[in-house]
């Protein structure tokens, strides 16, 4: 054998390594880990919701997530792609969708919603990372517009193991059959109630005074979706996400500011017409949206400036739709609207490249001063 190790000798060498460019190490989390952290952050609020609304809510949660997973696998099978259920994104989509539905909604709502979220909201665009709109919010809005009656039926809290709470067997009937809930069980959530009363010509303070007790309660014992009742737990989960570096502060802060600022102004100007900032921030999907929904990587801008604009836009739009629009809650619409604007924001909010000005032209070289001392 020639002493020269040419490639002709390769036969004598161990198998060639697969071609790979640097870096040869990795430091970040994996996608699955990221999604798991988000689920962990959601868990306390979800469990609280389960306790508050009992078995029907748990059933709906399971059905929604099941539908998402099923839809995801079905689409990937159709496309001949390998399963990506392991990355947890479909599960998370189902989870967030379930948190935003009326807790006692019938199973077909969860089923249909899961399919809409994954098929129309995600897989049509090519799956994880390719979608343009937030899948869970697409599904929620599509359901709301299609089935406004079912989607606006809220139950009063009936904590698990309490006297009135339906048992597991009863819950299956509720989930499967979607009986029209008697008035005793349904109630309005804060935003819906104030909106309807306003439309009747009743001022906000009067409406709050006359409304059911379950409109607003710091401990979370109130009417609403799973993601809306345990507000403080949602907030805690959000702070955990911030601390663990999964999300950054720009979007949540901007969303909350976007809701709070106009709310402060409006409430100060006309308290009879506008809810206070606290009420805005702690009701509806404000916190869930700010920390978990608006922050969806795929559909939000990825520069700090872009994220601030994006978040503030969501906040303002949410407040506008809540205060003046046809729907009591605007978070889902606001998120989708700003999702649509994301490519435009991304286009105009690019980071400055080192050595270049913002417009992309190279910097002028600084004149060399060779005369001074060190």
């Amino acid at each position, binding site marked *: 054998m020639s002493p020269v190790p040419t490639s002709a000798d390769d036969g004598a060498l161990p198998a060639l390594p697969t071609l790979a460019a640097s870096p040869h190490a990795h430091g970040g989390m994996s996608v699955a880990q990221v999604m798991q952290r988000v689920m962990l952050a959601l868990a306390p609020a979800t469990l609280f919701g389960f306790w508050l609304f009992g078995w029907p809510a748990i059933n709906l949660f399971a059905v929604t997530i099941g539908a998402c997973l099923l839809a995801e696998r079905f689409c990937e099978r159709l496309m001949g792609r390998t399963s990506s259920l392991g990355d947890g994104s479909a599960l998370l989509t189902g989870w967030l969708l379930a948190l935003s539905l009326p807790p006692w909604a019938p199973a077909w709502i969860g089923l249909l919603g899961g399919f809409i979220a994954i098929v129309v909201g995600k897989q049509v665009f090519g799956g994880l990372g390719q979608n343009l709109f937030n899948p869970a919010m697409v599904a929620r809005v599509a359901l709301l517009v299609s089935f406004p009656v079912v989607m*606006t039926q809220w139950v009063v809290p009936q904590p698990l193991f309490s006297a009135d709470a339906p048992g597991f067997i009863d819950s299956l009937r509720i989930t499967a059959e979607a009986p029209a809930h008697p008035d005793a069980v349904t109630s309005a959530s804060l935003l819906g109630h104030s909106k309807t009363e306003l*439309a009747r010509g009743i001022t906000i303070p009067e409406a709050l005074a006359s409304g059911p007790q379950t409109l607003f309660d710091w401990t979370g014992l109130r009417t609403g979706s799973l993601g809306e009742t345990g507000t403080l737990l949602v907030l805690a989960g959000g702070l955990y996400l911030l601390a663990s570096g999964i999300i950054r502060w720009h979007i949540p802060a901007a969303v909350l500011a976007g809701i709070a600022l106009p709310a402060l102004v409006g409430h100060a100007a006309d308290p009879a017409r506008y809810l206070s900032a606290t009420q805005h921030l702690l009701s509806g999907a404000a916190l869930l949206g700010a920390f978990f929904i608006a922050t969806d990587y795929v559909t939000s801008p990825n520069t700090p400036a872009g994220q601030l604009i994006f978040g503030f836009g969501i906040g303002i739009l949410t407040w506008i739709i809540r205060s003046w629009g046809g729907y009591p809650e605007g978070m889902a619409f606001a998120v989708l609207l700003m999702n649509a604007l994301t490519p435009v924001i991304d286009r105009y909010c690019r980071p400055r490249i080192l050595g270049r000005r913002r417009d992309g032209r190279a910097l002028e070289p600084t004149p060399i001063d060779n005369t001074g001392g060190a």
Partner: protein
Amino acid sequence: MGTDQSPGFSLDALRDRLAYQPLLLGGVALVAGTALTLANNATRAPIAAAEAHDTQMTLAQVLPAGSADNDLLRDVLELPSPAAGSTRRIHIARKAGVVTGAVFNVSERGYAGEIRLLMAVDPAGRVLGVRVLKHTETPGLGDKIEIARNPWITSFSGRSLGDPTADKWAVRKDGGIYDSFAGATITPRAVVKAVKGGLDYFAAHRNEILGAQP
């Protein structure tokens, strides 16, 4: 002229002349104008008839069949409307010259916007009929006030200010006698309020309306 020089008349040569364009377009326009005028003349009468029929159909919905033999479209009384500075047109239905009803618009703010209704009242102040003309309520929720979707709107027929009593002129939820739809109370509430307003108005102007001359 180009054609003068070449004995063989050439369309191609002609087409390039500057005067050809306006002449051609003018010619086409002339033909088009003529055709349209003819078509317009031919369809004018049927269109007018169709439009009149339309209005008749709407009026007929709120007026019981055969309750009028006059031309409702012409028999109009203008009265001041509750909103300051404007007037309300009231169509008077007569049978054999006797007033059998008054037909007019009422409106009220519903859930998502204004709801416009057409209602007919008989001389005794009883509702003859109510129909929705225009609304922007949420489809699936508030749109049940359309007769095409739900017969609810007919529940006003025969009612008057005294029947039910004033405190019962409300939806059931507010202690009245009228049903509301699941998940949508505002819309029916608004309609009830509008109809009641219409009856109030009629009561206030009863004499003028009944005494109106055709």
